């Protein structure tokens, strides 16, 4: 019986939260890796693109709610998502036109474009704060739980409760659908294949008659969509705060680099790897250990390796280890 309790505690405190967080990171990392693959630079503005897109989605949600629209048991934000994506994609395309296109034309070194993207990042974070402010915003509605801790306890008779929030389930389902759609697009459509071809060998793609500006535009649209979906799911799951999205930049890039920059499959694997490491290292294992260890041997300490305040250092450590020992990542991406 104790062993069962340990599994439930593990599910409740580690596996479910980490899987939901991993799905959010994976979507963000996919956006980062696509931009890296096609435009050949690390887009530092990604975190603030997420913040901006989520802010627009929240505005849309409020507007819908003020008109009495709701999405039943699902969050209203899902209805506002296409609006958020459209506005963010338009902003990304405008930014490309004003900033990045110039650097493409002069064939600037990637590091120069990275610095330019930092400038874009500051501008975007300023716009976001003007639009929606710096406060924490909760915009989730609909049904709160799929499985509730108390009813789970009553139904199973276990001491440990298991809670599955609807936003967590929603995150995982949405991420799976989005990833499936993206892979279908990249592997089965002419446009998707031309994107991969451009990412693989730019010169040969030009020789084959692939229009680079079209590829770049589609990449921005897809990357914006991924960023807004990831940002909105994160905001639904936790809460919206512009600064938090900037902080997500580190785990997202850690995920993309671990998986191999430019490799979509790697981005997904990397997202989950970073999420599970982060949650695993900052979780206090005392409770689980207490169930599994023989009586009397249960530890007194919390068995927490790092305080949650330091959770971003996990991504940082992963990033450094990968860059030192396997710069191309698990799935053989481009060397950084």
């Amino acid at each position: 019986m104790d062993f069962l309790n340990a599994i439930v505690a593990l599910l409740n405190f580690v596996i479910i939260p980490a899987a939901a967080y991993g799905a959010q990171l994976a979507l963000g990392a996919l956006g980062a890796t696509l931009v890296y693959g096609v435009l050949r630079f690390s887009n530092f503005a990604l975190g603030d693109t997420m913040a901006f897109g989520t802010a627009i989605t929240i505005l849309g949600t409020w507007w819908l709610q003020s008109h009495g629209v709701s999405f039943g048991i699902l969050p209203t934000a899902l209805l506002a998502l296409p609006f958020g994506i459209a506005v963010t994609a338009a902003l990304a395309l405008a930014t490309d036109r004003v900033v990045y296109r110039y650097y493409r034309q002069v064939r600037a070194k990637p590091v120069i474009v990275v610095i330019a993207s930092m400038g874009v990042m500051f501008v975007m974070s300023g716009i976001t704060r003007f639009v929606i402010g710096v406060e924490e915003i909760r915009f989730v509605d609909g049904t709160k739980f799929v499985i509730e801790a108390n009813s789970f306890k009553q139904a199973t008779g276990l001491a440990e409760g298991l809670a599955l929030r609807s936003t967590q389930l929603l995150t995982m389902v949405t991420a799976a659908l989005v990833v499936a759609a993206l892979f279908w697009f990249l592997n089965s459509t002419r446009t998707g294949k031309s994107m991969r071809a451009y990412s693989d060998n730019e010169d040969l793609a030009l020789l084959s008659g692939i229009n680079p500006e079209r590829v770049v535009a589609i990449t921005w649209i897809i990357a914006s969509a991924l960023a807004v979906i990831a940002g909105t799911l994160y905001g639904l799951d936790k809460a919206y705060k512009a600064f938090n999205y900037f902080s997500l930049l580190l785990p997202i890039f850690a995920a993309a680099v671990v998986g191999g920059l430019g490799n979509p499959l790697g981005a997904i694997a990397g997202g989950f790897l970073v999420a599970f490491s982060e949650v695993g290292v900052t979780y206090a294992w005392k409770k689980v250990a207490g169930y599994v260890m023989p009586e009397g041997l249960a530890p007194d300490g919390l068995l927490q390796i790092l305080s949650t305040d330091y959770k971003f250092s996990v991504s940082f450590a992963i990033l450094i280890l990968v860059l030192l020992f396997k710069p191309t990542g698990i799935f053989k991406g481009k060397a950084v």
Partner: protein
Amino acid sequence: MSFLAAENMTGGYGAADILHDCTLRVEKGQIAVIVGPNGAGKSTAMKAVFGMLKLRGGHVRLDGEDITQLSPQDRVAKGMGFVPQVNNVFPSMSVEENLEMGAFIRKDDFKATMEQVYDLFPILRDKRRQAAGELSGGQRQQVAVGRALMTQPKLLMLDEPTAGVSPIVMDELFDRIIEVARTGISILMVEQNARQALEIADQGYVLVQGANRYTDTGKALMADPEVRRTFLGG
């Protein structure tokens, strides 16, 4: 009138000219080979024909039409196919996807052309689901040539197709190139393996310092004692 007539080409990448009054001609369905010592401007001459180099003098005519001002992409649409020496495949994409990308500008059904490429290079049919980057050097060259054939070019240009492949594979590749020429496609090829290349060449160009030194049929160049002594190692 030759099918390809690139005449009196003069130009280079920067201020200094690399090509000096260089002339290359290819007849319909024939094989022309450019040979010469290192740094003779062989690849540069080919790039000039393909429009990757700004010419300060001379002109390029394909099938009688002046294409001197066209970009490489527009020349592909006019019926030129180009196989670069290196980085000539999409490594992470499958063989079949490589061929599909070769046919990107075609709006019609290219399945028949793909079958022709597979008939020409049967090994590619077996490996069509495999990533091109995982193939051997010789197989990768076949993918590269196959990709260029997908636009159904009238002139196929090959920049050192046998660079870095074993002698057996080299013979095999040359055989395939002859087969391509027999279907009526003109071929312009730069080759480091001068002897073998001249053996299959209808027309040979020996370039030295960006200018034509000897121009004759492949056989005649092979027989010329001067050419043999200076460029073919005796």
